[in-house]
């Protein structure tokens, strides 16, 4: 089982859903270790919990099949290949950083990465923001997050704000995630989503 996870980990290019479909092919279709309903449940768990959906689903399947050992071999098998690859490539990156040609290459890579992150927001938004409530929460978090990042410039006169700025910046993402979860709870009870900018900096 560890070996099949290793193989999937080493070949799972192309994002979370590519990994999920590789897992499905291996454990549902080829080995028939789990039914497709069980597999769908694993994917649903992965969607609710933090962490990459494919890893969560794999750990869930591994745990259902073989307990702790199965869960460990699922996580270990999926993560080991990319871990080793990054471990090898990272020193090469820092070594090549001295070459001017590599700097030219990176100057094209950097805008592409920005585009990848922006496209991820677009894709998640298109799938998830079908209602006004979701849109408002997303817009609120977008603005609040940008404000938190520039918190030093907001009110230059406030000494305490300058002192608190590093902490606000470091914790704003977690605070905003929790806040948007709470807003999600509130939205269902009230027709209009309340926007409370103060909550973001708590």
């Amino acid at each position: 089982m560890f070996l099949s996870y290793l193989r999937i980990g080493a070949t799972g290019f192309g994002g979370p859903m590519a990994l999920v479909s590789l897992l499905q092919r291996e454990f549902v279709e080829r080995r028939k270790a789990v039914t497709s309903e069980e597999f769908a449940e694993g994917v649903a768990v992965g969607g609710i919990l933090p962490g990459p959906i494919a890893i969560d689903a794999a750990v869930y399947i591994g745990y259902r099949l073989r307990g702790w050992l199965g869960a460990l071999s699922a996580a270990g098998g999926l993560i080991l290949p990319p871990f080793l690859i990054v471990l090898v490539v990272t020193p090469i990156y820092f070594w090549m950083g001295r070459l001017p040609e590599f700097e030219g290459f990176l100057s094209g890579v950097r805008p592409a990465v920005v585009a990848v992150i922006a496209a991820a927001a677009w894709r998640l938004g298109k799938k998830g923001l079908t209602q006004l409530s979701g849109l408002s929460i997303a817009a609120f978090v977008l603005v609040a997050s940008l404000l938190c990042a520039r918190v030093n410039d907001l009110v230059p006169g406030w000494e305490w704000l300058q002192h608190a700025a590093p902490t606000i910046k470091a914790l704003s993402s977690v605070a905003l995630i929790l806040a948007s979860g709470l807003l999600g709870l509130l939205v269902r009870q009230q027709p209009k989503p309340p926007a409370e900018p103060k909550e973001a900096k708590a």
Partner: protein
Amino acid sequence: MSSLLELALSCLRVGTFVFGGGPALVPLMRPDVVVRYGWLTSYQFNDAVALGQVTPGPLLVTATFIGWKVGFDAGGPWAAVLYATVATVCIFLPSFFMTIAASHQLGRLRGNPRVQQFTKGVEAGVVGLIAAAAVQMARDTIGSWPQGILCLAALTVLVRTKVEAAWVIGACGGLALLASFVGVW
């Protein structure tokens, strides 16, 4: 050794809150790595995300890169391997335990309307968070008009077609390399 502890705690926190998949790592990790501790420049952080994209498996292995850099600065190659391992384990550990804990309560968890509402809210919030991260990355790492145009072109390709991110990243790098040889960059 304190940087190892800071790294571990940072990765544990990111691992606990990285809802909505890999890209959520960027808004969660960037403030710590670039702003608070200054482990990486914003350019290096951008490159770390690129590496996470072009390697197989989840984007969270970006933490391996970050761990390697922090460890190398603290104590050379062996420390680099140690730190990279710690960072990787710590970033995956929270969701590992949560998945196992949740697998006993699956029915209750999925059927609970409050959990669903909370999850819906978080999903929406994460979209805003990732968009904000993209804005900040753009401000920090895009320094010229050609780069801006390249970014928009890449975004168009990614949104309109099903070309994989890794290919777009590689193609943009190759294009820029060519352009810098010709001298139009």
